[in-house]
């Protein structure tokens, strides 16, 4: 299986990534993509900064992708995750999975998202109305792992 992990500061081209993902793989009938976007819940969000742990981040994402590979029939996996400063509406990250069948592609994409939310070393800090605050992890993110 081909796994591609990208951790970068600049924006990524979602269209180009989706187009290139699993291109030419005629054995893979199902491609799922998910994109995470900076969400402005209150209408007051100025921006978000994402900090990460260089080195461990790449290892953790690789490990999560390999775990997914062992559980589902996957031909290709892509994870792109940004760090640094972002504005509301900016794309933070994307995952893509390709499988012979859609169930595997959907489930593996959800698994990747559940795990990278609370097992990949990223931390979000929001600025709203001039005040900064770290985004707290949610209990439901931790309990989401139990279903796997």
């Amino acid at each position, binding site marked *: 299986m081909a796994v591609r992990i990208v951790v970068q500061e600049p924006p990524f081209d979602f269209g180009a990534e989706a187009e290139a993902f699993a291109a030419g793989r005629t054995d893979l009938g199902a491609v799922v993509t998910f994109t*995470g976007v900076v969400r402005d819940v209150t209408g007051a969000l100025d921006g978000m900064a994402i*900090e990460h*742990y260089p*080195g*461990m981040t790449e*290892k*953790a994402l690789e490990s999560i992708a390999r775990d997914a590979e062992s559980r589902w029939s996957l031909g290709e996996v892509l994870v792109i*995750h940004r760090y640094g400063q972002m504005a509301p509406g900016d794309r*933070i*990250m994307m995952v893509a999975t390709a499988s012979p069948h859609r169930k595997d592609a959907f489930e593996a994409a959800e698994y990747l*998202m559940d795990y*990278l*939310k*609370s*097992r*990949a*070393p*990223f*931390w*979000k*800090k929001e600025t709203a109305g001039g005040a900064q605050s*770290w*985004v*707290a*992890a949610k209990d439901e993110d*931790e309990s989401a792992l139990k279903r796997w």
Partner: protein
Amino acid sequence: MIDVLYFAWVRERIGLPKERIDSAAATVADLVAELRAREERYEVAFSDLSALRVAVDQELTDFDAPLAGAREVAFFPPMTGG
């Protein structure tokens, strides 16, 4: 010598991202005890271990993990990726 890294609000409370420490701590918990005894900013940052996570050599682990042979320990709050 061991590299100790801090991220997110732990980094802000302690006031630096990384330091090299001469420590004989056998476990992560021993290292935390050494750090807490240093200065108040460490005491504050480590006051509630349930709010912290730890990685040894870039692998998530527990506070009772041994440090023998470890090069790098990192302390941070629960992660918020995605």
